[in-house]
């Protein structure tokens, strides 16, 4: 009985950890949706692209190595990758978004599909399609202490991810609440015209928000890439973030985290306790069904802004 209870805790903890990992991906979506109303289909590919760049900068035979004959240490590679993501954001604004201001959200959504294709193709051309084991020195494997003393299985990488996720959300929350740019971002989210009238350039805002989202993508890419190696499949984790998004609301940063936790715990419990009776592999649709059930009660997601209907 005791071990059953212990196992239940383990399942819940795994769910929490998985949820944080999903939330890391979902955060990138939220940032862009919040500030520009764009559902960014390319978010998954951005994670892949960032992780590919990061690996490449540190690897012998990578671009830095070929161009300058050196490989970068981890921290410098991260800085360089952040630089790359900012350039990518700037290019996206310059070449794509700028020409599509005022279009329907669904058109912009389609444009992000184009972006996804471009980033995928460029990623392949620039960095190759092999599996790249990403080792930044993040501890991996089960925590021995937890396993030996508590008999509890906790993955170290995921603890790191959870802490990172928490820090990231806090930083973003402060960024949105306290800084001038953050307030501007919120203003843009509320009303494009109003934001323009107080003298904030929409274009600057978009570059900033896509950059931040690129950085979030890098964090997600590092965490997932450390787990499975950097490869094309990394771009598919975006699918895992979608139920989190609907549950938490497209516009809420804390929503992404809470949504991630609910989805993570929910799907793990379902798979472990209910899956064996129906043949398993139910996690995916269960996550969506769970999100759908929530939506039926709150059509705008848990933390989404309330939709008011008027004529």
């Amino acid at each position, binding site marked *: 009985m005791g071990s059953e209870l212990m196992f239940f805790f383990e399942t819940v903890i795994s769910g929490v950890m998985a949820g944080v990992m999903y939330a890391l991906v979902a955060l990138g979506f939220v940032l862009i949706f919040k500030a520009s109303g764009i559902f960014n289909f390319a978010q998954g590919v951005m994670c892949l692209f960032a992780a590919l760049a990061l690996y490449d900068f540190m690897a012998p035979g990578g671009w830095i190595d070929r161009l300058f004959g050196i490989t970068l240490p981890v921290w410098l590679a991260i800085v360089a990758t952040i630089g790359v993501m900012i350039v990518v954001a700037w290019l996206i604004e310059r070449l794509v978004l700028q020409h599509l201001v005022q279009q*329907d959200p669904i*058109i912009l959504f389609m*444009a992000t599909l184009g972006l996804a294709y471009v980033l995928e193709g460029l990623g392949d051309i620039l960095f190759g399609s092999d599996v790249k084991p990403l080792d930044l020195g993040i501890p991996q494997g089960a925590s021995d202490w937890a396993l030996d003393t508590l008999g509890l299985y906790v993955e170290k990488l995921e603890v790191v991810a959870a802490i990172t996720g928490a820090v990231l959300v806090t930083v973003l929350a402060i960024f949105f609440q306290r800084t001038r740019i953050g307030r501007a971002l919120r203003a843009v989210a509320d009303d494009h015209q109003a934001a323009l009238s107080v003298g904030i350039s929409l274009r600057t805002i978009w570059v900033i928000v896509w950059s931040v989202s690129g950085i979030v993508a890098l964090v997600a890419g590092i965490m997932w890439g450390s787990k499975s190696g950097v490869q094309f499949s990394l771009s598919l984790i975006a699918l895992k973030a979608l139920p989190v*998004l609907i549950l938490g609301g497209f516009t809420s940063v804390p929503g992404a985290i809470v949504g991630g936790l609910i989805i993570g715990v929910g799907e793990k419990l379902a798979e472990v306790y209910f899956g064996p009776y129906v043949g398993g592999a139910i996690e995916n649709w269960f996550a*969506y069904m769970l999100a759908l059930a929530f*939506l039926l009660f709150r059509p705008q997601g848990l933390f989404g802004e309330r939709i008011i209907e008027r004529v």
Partner: protein
Amino acid sequence: MFYREAGQFKSSYNADQAILPIAQDRVFVIGVLAVAFAGVPWFIDSYWVNAIFLPFLAYALAALGLNLLTGYCGQVSLGTGGFMAVGAFATFKLITAFPELNLIIVVLLSGAVTAAVGVMFGLPSLRIKGFYLAVATLAAQFFLVWLFNKVGWFLNYSPTGQITMPSVEVFGVLVTGPRATPAARYLFCLSFVALFALAAKNIVRGRVGRSWMAIRDMDIAAELIGIRPLAAKLSAFAVSSFYIGMAGSLYFGVWLGSAEPIEAFGIEQSFLVLFMIIIGGLGSVLGSFLGAAFMTLMPIVLKNFMVDGLAVEVVTAKHVEITLMGVLIIFFLIVEPHGLARMWQILKEKLRLWPFPY
């Protein structure tokens, strides 16, 4: 010079309500149909049918179905892959259980089954809107595919999980299976697509179509002038799923011939068809065709152009193809955000003035 409507007067409302009120358009469409029905079958070979025409036709029908729902009724759905799977599996179950049943009836029944399933998964649309609905329809996508993959009955307990279409004759002509001639398979699909494109055009210009568009443009006002959201949305889901189900049936039965649920009907399908209608033109029957052509044929054109034409190495060509595909999508959206169909319309308007641009 050649594209003029001046001098074409309508003397009755019937004529004014005709599908193609402008004579040149009529000639053009009849010409396209004539070439498609009478010309293409003469030169079509297995490459053209398997790589070009059947994928185009199957996806065009699916895109048409989704466009009815998303383009005309404004309900974004990402369940297309799942609904295509319903159509495909209905076809498989029907044709293996009743081998004597005419394939035409099987395809129609598959559409009907899918319509029923579509209505069921359309129910949340009464409360959930926009992208939330889109992502909610993913629940249908994942659940349906899981179901077909997991429950042996759907697969006729095939040990591998692959379903295979038996060879079926329609009016004495083989249309499925490896021995069916390219022309027979092509004509079978083409007939469905042409007929149901016409039906779609009719539906969207009648009462039902108007009620869908009313819901799309302003659902509250529509409700207040007496359009029932329930009936309008669910009928859109039903008709749309009917089309998508038939598309799934042709996709599996006539084109691929065998399929496994996860790969053939995965989430990528849902996105692909949605992108077809956006790039082709939301709320446009023509746009569904243009979008399907763009998304299915453009990669092949790019690839063949680079590999055969420019002798680029295959891998590089693939990478460049993906990148170019993205660039083209963005390019077309910037040039005309409302899709290829609108671009075509603008072209026609220019043609109307040609050769005097002002």
